[in-house]
């Protein structure tokens, strides 16, 4: 069983369009959407939810106003500015360290567990799909990513599946690191722009930092052929194989609007290239 991840650094380069196509092309796999705070893969896979779980993670402080004497001790120790002037907690600022509750002389503060989101195991026409929804203005997205990856991995082992295919989040921070950890290979989808090049460099660095092999594709490569050349040049200096270049193809948006993967929507150049990319990536 192989775990493979699609990431990008820069957002909106086409990660989910590519991952969605892999769902249609790969046999014997489980799909995972690790972009838990802006998940979109379900819009292509149309899951039927079979299991629904709460994701409990972290804590938040709660002040009991009958006990609180407004002495200000909690305010002085909180480094997140989470205690407001009226001695209530601003929940989205509280990191749940619990220091306020420990220093309160009146024992007026206690910690409550957060419901930080929910996660699902679903059926799709492409096979099982594990996905999640981070609660509004919640944190701990890295832990939610780790949770659904573990669920998907166990499911793949039980059902003797060949692949865990993961749609990753943008950026290089905590949810990306949680998505990268322990995968067999990562595919970077970028675009031929200065931003795409800059962000691809950063995400290649992160993958290297965690010793994960990477391959790269350039989406909409013909928008700027010279920039595509620069990306290829850069990749060759870093020994990153460029396994595909997808043409700017209006069919891609049409497929999205139809809620379909590009390899199923209609015969198109972008779809043909993604088929080749899957063959080059899976091995």
């Amino acid at each position, binding site marked *: 069983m192989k775990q493979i991840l699609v990431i990008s*650094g*820069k*957002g*909106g*380069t086409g990660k*989910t369009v590519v991952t969605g196509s892999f769902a249609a092309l790969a046999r014997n796999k489980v799909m995972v959407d690790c*972009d*838990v*705070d*802006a998940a*979109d893969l379900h*819009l292509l896979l149309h899951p039927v939810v079979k299991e629904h779980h709460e994701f409990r993670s972290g*804590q938040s402080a709660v002040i009991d106003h009958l006990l609180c004497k407004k002495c200000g001790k909690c305010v002085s*120790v909180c*480094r997140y500015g989470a205690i407001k002037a009226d001695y209530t907690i601003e929940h*989205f*600022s509280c*990191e*749940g*360290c*619990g*220091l306020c509750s*420990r*220093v309160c002389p009146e024992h007026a503060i206690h910690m409550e567990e957060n419901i930080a989101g929910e996660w699902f195991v679903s059926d799709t026409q492409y096979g099982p799909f594990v996905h999640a929804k*981070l609660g*509004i*203005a*919640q*944190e701990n*997205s*890295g832990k939610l990513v780790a949770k659904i990856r573990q669920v998907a991995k166990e499911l793949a082992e039980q059902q003797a599946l060949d692949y865990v295919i993961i749609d990753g*989040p*943008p*950026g*290089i*921070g*905590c*949810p*990306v*690191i949680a998505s990268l950890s322990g995968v067999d290979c990562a595919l970077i989808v970028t*675009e*031929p*722009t*200065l*931003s*795409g090049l*800059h*962000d691809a460099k*950063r995400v290649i*660095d*992160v993958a290297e*930092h965690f010793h994960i092999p990477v391959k790269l594709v350039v989406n909409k490569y013909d*928008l*700027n052929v010279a*920039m595509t050349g620069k990306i290829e040049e850069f990749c060759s200096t870093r020994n990153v194989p460029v396994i595909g270049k997808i043409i700017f193809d*209006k069919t891609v*948006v049409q497929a*999205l*609007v139809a*809620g379909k993967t590009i390899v199923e929507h209609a015969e198109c150049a972008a779809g043909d290239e993604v088929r080749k990319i899957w063959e080059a990536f899976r091995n």
Partner: protein
Amino acid sequence: MLLEKKVSFMIISVASGKGGTGKTTVAVNLALSLENVQFLDCDVEEPNAQIFLKPSILDQKKAGVLIPKVDPTKCNDCGRCQDVCAFHAIAALPPYDGKKGKVLVFPHLCHGCGACSLLCPQKAIEEVEKDIGIIEIGEIQGIHFVHGRLNVGEAMSPPLIRQVKTYINRARTVIIDAPPGTSCPVITTVKGSDFCLLVTEPTPFGLNDLILAVEVLRKLQIPFGVVINRADIGDDKVEAYCENAKISVLMRIPFSKEIAVSYSNGIPIVSLDHSYREKFINLYREICRIANETNTCH
């Protein structure tokens, strides 16, 4: 206090939910169209505004978080630090087999709350700075520019974002480029803004993530409006959603191959097509109009 608020300018953040919808494009072009602007790039994982603004960097500062450092000569292995750490970032190994105990610190798990050092009965823990990134300060065409750059391999961006935001200068209109998504980095960035622009595109992905971003801003009680980028691709469901939810669409930028190509080379729209300057000034006026309803714009 009241007087102070009256002379201050607006803080406008630009966010999106979905990545790649044009946050940086809108933020940069808005900044280039206005006078007396400070620009903060809080997308510290992938800071791209500098590609378009090309500021001269005048100053560079290291950004760090505080992590505990244990003085073994003072530590008596009581284990209190481990008990009070909510993030499992410190482990106190008890004495074993005649050997002295040991305290291990896991810096990547530490949130820098200070509980261990404050509550150590032996005062054996001091806090030391650990680098997580850099902050660069620069200037371009009268725009005061600040951005943060998270070190590769570093997981937590909010502390760096908070440090970038300490440079906010309320004597200028502050424009903040936010990271994508809807979780802690975004919340940390947009918190305290007078107004938030949500940039989206008219596709099912754009709509799905716009709805999530709207929920976040409603929870944070920040006034907001929408910019639809590549407004003539996809479908009309974003427009329909905004109309139903009574959300103002403040600007529509049609898809243009010319804009896309100039973007790819790091050229802002207003440099390519001067008529856009007026459009971004109008966008600012619309922002003021809406923010005025909540009494924050001057």
